[in-house]
């Protein structure tokens, strides 16, 4: 975004028509950025002692969605591939955890995290191989079909998955030394996973992989000419992204303690993608803003019109895209950029 853009008042700048236009790399000094993150983290640690359990639960779910969106952001925002089926990887993580906890009594909850993430990673890798050959909307269609196919598939393997009745699991019990209530303990577990996911995503993007992905997104052919191996990086992006979704699904199972095919319908996949785009593709805070949107906007919609909340929810999605074609994070940046000019 060049300086002249901010002079345009009404029309937002028109970004190039590739899926996943990023918010521009910010020229902010790294120190300041980390200060903001640290501040946010401090607030996140302080919040559960101030909030009623219900709000702590809501924040926990925001973090769960944020982890999934971080992964989706890798794929959509950084690798430029559209997935309308990430709910499926989320479900794979959730079900892996649920089945492990269901089969082995006394298995520590934390032990399920690497397994769930690993299984999702492998599936993502397997799926990434054909996905490499698909572009844009075609990939969206395939992933959408995958999300639709998941529910009947889960019901078919009733022995393992509990069929349509689902599985009810125990939640992690806070250890005595912590002195925390169950909701607070769950919150901190989720926060830890979210922070780890954030750091992992950040270091991934700063590594060779991240640079390669950006090169691919911005100009595939040029990147290939420069020697970036297209297919292996795209496959990897899919796998990493599935892994984050799987980890989020795992934490979801800890928090909700119940999985069923109805929890992971195609709506989840669509909501996740909508949340990410609304939050802001390719930006640092996009997944968090998107998670806030996914979590809170449905209930806000109901407060506005309880006869048909869907009417408001649909309109809000359209309205956000209207006001902020690059997402809320992009909108925030544009607004902030204007402030010093007025002073």
């Amino acid at each position, binding site marked *: 975004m060049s300086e002249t853009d901010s002079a345009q008042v009404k029309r937002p700048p028109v970004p190039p028509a590739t899926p996943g236009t990023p918010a521009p790399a910010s020229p902010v000094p790294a120190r300041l950025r980390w200060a903001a993150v640290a501040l946010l983290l401090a607030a996140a640690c302080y919040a559960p002692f101030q909030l009623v359990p219900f709000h702590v639960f809501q924040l926990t779910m925001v973090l769960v969605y944020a982890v999934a969106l971080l992964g989706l952001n890798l794929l959509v925002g950084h690798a430029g591939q559209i997935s309308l089926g990430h709910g499926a990887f989320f479900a794979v993580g959730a079900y892996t955890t649920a089945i492990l906890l269901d089969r082995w009594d006394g298995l520590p909850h934390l032990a399920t995290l690497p397994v769930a993430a690993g299984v999702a990673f492998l599936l993502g890798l397997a799926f990434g191989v054909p996905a490499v050959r*698909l572009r844009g*909307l075609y990939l969206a269609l395939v992933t959408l*079909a995958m999300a639709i196919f998941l529910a009947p598939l889960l019901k078919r393997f009733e022995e393992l998955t509990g069929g349509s009745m689902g599985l009810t699991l125990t939640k992690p019990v806070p250890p005595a030394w912590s002195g925390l209530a169950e909701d607070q303990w769950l919150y901190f577990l989720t926060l830890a996973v979210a922070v780890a996911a954030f750091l992992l995503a950040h270091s991934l993007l700063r590594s060779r992989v991240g640079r390669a992905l950006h090169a691919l997104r911005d100009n595939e052919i040029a990147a290939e000419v420069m020697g970036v191996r297209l297919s292996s990086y795209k496959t990897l992006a899919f796998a990493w992204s599935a892994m984050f979704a799987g980890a989020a699904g795992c934490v979801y199972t800890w928090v909700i303690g119940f999985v069923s095919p109805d929890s992971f319908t195609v709506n989840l996949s669509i909501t996740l993608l909508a949340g990410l*785009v609304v939050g802001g593709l390719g930006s640092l805070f996009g997944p968090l803003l998107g998670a806030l949107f996914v979590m809170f906007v449905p209930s806000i919609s109901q407060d506005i019109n309880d006869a*048909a909340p869907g009417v408001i929810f649909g309109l809000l*999605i359209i309205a956000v*895209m209207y006001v902020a074609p690059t997402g809320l994070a992009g909108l925030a940046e544009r607004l902030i950029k204007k402030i010093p000019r007025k002073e």
Partner: protein
Amino acid sequence: MAGFLQQVVEGLGAGAIYASLALALVLIYQFTGIVNFAQGELAMFSTYIAWQCVAAGLPFWLALVLTLAVSFAGGMLIERVIIRPVEGAPELTLVIVTVGLFIFVNAAAGWIWTFLIKDFPNPFPGGVLEAGGIHVSVSTLGVLGVVAVVMGLLYALFRYTKIGLGMRAVATNPSSARLVGIRVGWMLALGWGLAATVGAVSGVLVAPVLFLEPNMMGGVLIYAFAAATLGGFDSPLGAVVGGLIVGVAETLAGAYIQVIGSDLKVGVPLVIIVVVLLLRPQGLFGRAVVERA
């Protein structure tokens, strides 16, 4: 053998339904280059308008004409009001806008007309034809006939009219099209209007079979996508042939392949989409697009 043929006929009946919506998807893709996730919901909404007209006492055919006109105007209006502001935004932004539209239209229909099943008149007579032990209902034949006519009209539109030419230019390269004097904005609005009209035909055709309620088209959408992908997103003929193939394949797989059974047959469109995209991405009847970097 008669059993098998009967299954094929059932599949064709289902396929005709998928094909009718796939035609609308192909049309809007041709005009605007986007995949409209709300197309099925718009079709459902149009069908409610037709139902409302009939319930108000209009004769069926007049109601139909009125509905098609309203749908055309409505489609153009949606393009003007909802799509225009995000024109030129990333593809994904447009996709999400159509997702928002999907949720909005579905909820609005439930709000206005409730979720009770509406009694929708069947434009075709009720009888069943029989030949060699195989039963075909007149209404299935009627749906197939109408789908064929719409396909023919679209083909003629794409191939022989100036609008078709302009539309292809806009979809391929909007800025060049503008330079040669094509009114790009109007072409896009026209695309939405025509797609909504074809969608309305689809809705009216399937309502007597699927029964009209707000979620009528939700299940059809993925099959219509599979049909359009199989046939090629730029070919009306492809959409129809694709729809019929998807319908027959799904029905036969559900009936004869034990592992799939009736619960997993929704996997059939998934497999079709993946296989087609891997082997022949442009679809059976589509033209391969050569991209310049």
